[in-house]
């Protein structure tokens, strides 16, 4: 009760100037930025901040990870689900260095984060003091912006700037390193949100000439193809995309991170792009006459050999980051804008009719993929369960409406291929960095970001062991996360490459695994192992129906490869089906 009154008081007076400790200013800044959930791990150099947090527990919930990397991945998924920057606290030194993987992941995948790391007192900077690390230097290449605070007076302004930068323009992670003396010292406090930085232009002015040029290409196209990237989800442009697609009748393909920006059961949806994507959109990338790429960055996993990528097509590239235009692929019409803004304007200018013959070519390719790959994997008749069967069953029982968090590897590609995303913004995965261990903490963050959602994580046996300590968070905060491990006792994707490109020399990919069910039960979470096909459906059903957290290990076939595949260095149209 006392805590509640205290914060109520502070709220009424925080608009005027107050004299407060740096730690208190930092915590109040978070409340001003409408932060509700924080992920973190306490330690020496951040203790004053945690002490201030103690008085604001009614407004700020702190989730104690078991490793700082887990905290960052949870914050990433939280950000992507809640559409608010994810916030992390860690101490200096090892606590801070443990966030680097999460920062790099968030930087590549454009996820807004505000990470606050404690630092030794300013007098000790550069002296190799206990747990002193140069976090500004270390995080510089993997953050959108970073700043070291050494004075309490700086905190409010820097925090406002941090949130503004993290969420505006192309979102990204920000790291704020704050010395212990700045947390303890006092300063006048008055919060003012940041709305502008003179050397930063996050929202470009739309060039209407480029919009018209794009519309003209689109309206004249006979065989157009639209590539939907994560930019659609980041700018919340799913409705605008749907309007555009229905108006123009242009077939859609999604990048890995663009999945769930467009429903997979729509007649104009043609599948996922890239190395392990679907056959039809990859093959037709090199057949289309106009390629409309929205909020994506022509990653090498999407393009294959860039010298043989869509050479016949006129390319329109809509992206908010100017440095992405012509970076990997030269384009006809670069359109500097966020996806929503561009699509809103384009929708006023575009139209089109059904392209029956063009659509038929997708169907023919899809049928080929079904006959050669999907039938064998998602409806396998081999002795052991195939990963694809598990994903298909989860998809059916959730009606493709659960939030699916995946780790990295074969199971990730299989999930992306076989889960039928019917609801928007329901896939969380590590795209650019490919961080093993991402999936489980991501599921935790996603569940906190949407308490009512059904959240399912799918990991492999390798990645799961990189962050399984975060099961403790699931238990501690009673989160109803459903965690699946597809266990093939191998680092499956690397095994696949060894199989295909290294003469089946399976160097260091076999894993002698522990008893996962016992481990998970040790965390107080209900767990089950399935290895027979006849038990699979019931086990998944049971897992999904249970109101609590649940762990399901499915023992799957080792020898299965994810197909089709664009071999490294090959062109998209050289995708192999077997």
């Amino acid at each position, binding site marked *: 009760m006392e805590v509640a009154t205290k914060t109520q008081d502070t709220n009424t007076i925080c608009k005027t100037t107050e004299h407060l400790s740096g730690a208190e200013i930092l915590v109040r800044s978070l409340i001003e930025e409408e932060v509700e959930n924080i992920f973190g791990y306490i330690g020496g150099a951040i203790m004053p901040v945690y002490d201030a947090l103690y008085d604001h527990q009614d407004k700020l919930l702190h989730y104690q990870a078991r490793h700082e990397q887990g905290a960052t991945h949870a914050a990433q998924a939280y950000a992507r689900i809640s559409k608010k920057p994810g916030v992390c606290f860690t101490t200096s030194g090892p606590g801070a260095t443990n966030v680097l993987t999460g920062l790099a992941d968030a930087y590549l995948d454009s996820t807004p984060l505000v990470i606050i790391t404690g630092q030794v007192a300013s007098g000790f900077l550069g002296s190799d003091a206990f747990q002193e690390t140069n976090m*500004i*230097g270390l995080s*510089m*290449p993997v953050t*959108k*912006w*970073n700043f070291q605070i050494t004075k309490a007076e700086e905190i409010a302004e820097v925090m406002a700037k941090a949130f503004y*930068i993290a969420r505006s323009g192309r979102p990204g992670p920000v790291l704020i390193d704050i010395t212990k003396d700045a947390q303890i010292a006092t300063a006048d406090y008055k919060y003012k949100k940041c709305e502008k*930085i*003179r*050397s*930063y232009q996050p929202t470009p002015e739309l060039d209407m000439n480029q919009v018209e040029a794009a519309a003209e290409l689109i309206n004249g196209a006979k065989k157009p193809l639209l590539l939907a990237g994560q930019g659609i989800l980041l700018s919340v442009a799913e409705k605008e995309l749907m309007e555009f697609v229905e108006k123009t009748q242009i077939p859609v393909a999604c990048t890995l991170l663009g999945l769930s920006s467009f429903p997979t059961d729509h007649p104009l949806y043609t599948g996922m792009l890239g190395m392990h994507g679907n056959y039809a959109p990859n093959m037709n990338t090199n057949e289309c006459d106009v390629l409309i790429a929205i909020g994506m960055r022509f990653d090498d996993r999407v393009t294959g050999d860039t010298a043989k990528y869509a050479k016949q097509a006129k390319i329109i590239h809509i992206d908010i*980051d*100017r*440095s992405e235009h*012509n*970076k990997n692929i030269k384009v006809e019409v670069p359109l500097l804008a966020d996806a929503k803004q561009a699509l809103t304007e384009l929708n006023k200018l575009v139209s089109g009719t059904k392209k029956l013959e063009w659509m038929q070519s997708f169907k023919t390719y899809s049928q080929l993929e079904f006959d050669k790959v999907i039938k064998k994997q998602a409806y396998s008749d081999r002795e052991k369960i195939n990963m694809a069967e598990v994903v298909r069953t989860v998809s059916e029982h959730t009606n493709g409406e659960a939030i699916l968090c995946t780790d990295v590897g074969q199971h990730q590609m299989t999930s992306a291929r076989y889960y039928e995303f019917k609801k928007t913004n329901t896939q969380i995965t590590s795209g650019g960095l490919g961080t093993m261990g991402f999936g489980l903490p991501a599921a935790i963050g996603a569940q906190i970001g949407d308490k009512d959602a059904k959240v399912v994580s799918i990991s492999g046996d390798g990645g799961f062991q990189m962050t399984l300590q975060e099961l403790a968070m699931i238990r501690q905060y009673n989160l109803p996360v459903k965690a699946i491990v597809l266990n093939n006792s191998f680092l499956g994707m690397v095994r696949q490459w060894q199989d295909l490109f290294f003469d089946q020399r399976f160097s260091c990919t076999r894993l002698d695994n522990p008893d996962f069910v016992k481990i998970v039960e040790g965390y107080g979470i209900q767990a089950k192992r399935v290895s027979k096909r006849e038990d699979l459906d019931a086990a998944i059903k049971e897992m999904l129906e249970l109101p609590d957290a649940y762990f399901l290990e499915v023992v799957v076939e080792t020898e299965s490869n994810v197909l089709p595949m664009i071999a490294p260095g090959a062109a998209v149209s050289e995708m192999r089906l077997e």
Partner: protein
Amino acid sequence: MKEYTITVFSENNIGLLNEVTIVFSRRKINIESLTVSESEVKGVSRYTIVAYMDEGKVENVVLQIEKIIGVFKALYFEAEEIVHQEVALFKIANSTRLNGNLEAMVRKHGAKILTVSPEFLVIERVGYKAENQELFHELEQYGVLQFARSGRVAVSCLEKDFTSYLKELAEAS
């Protein structure tokens, strides 16, 4: 590989130089010379960076620099698009060996003598790198105690757009 002169305008913030150089080192591009100093607007730094790189790379490098928060603008130029100079200082032992030779040499090279003391003298030359190098070779016979060369500074032949923007910034602050 081509020589490019890159001009960057940024806030005068701690760490920004580091962020700019990371763009080069990440791509394994060596920086031949780098000069940072306050521009005509207070608080705005002007960088002049000389580096060799492939034609296809330079635009990306410049856009990556411009993406850094704190950077106003980054531009790249080829040699004919700029007027550029560097400053060289030569410290030579003062000895009878010099006689009248030095004065002629200084005149020939368009250099000037900055300081003369009983022990040494300092010569300054402003010009292109190659010319300064030439003078260095000629002075070597007298024993050069120290030779210091600044990085390149350059003004472009176009660029008027950004100067007016800088002026607006100055007026706003």
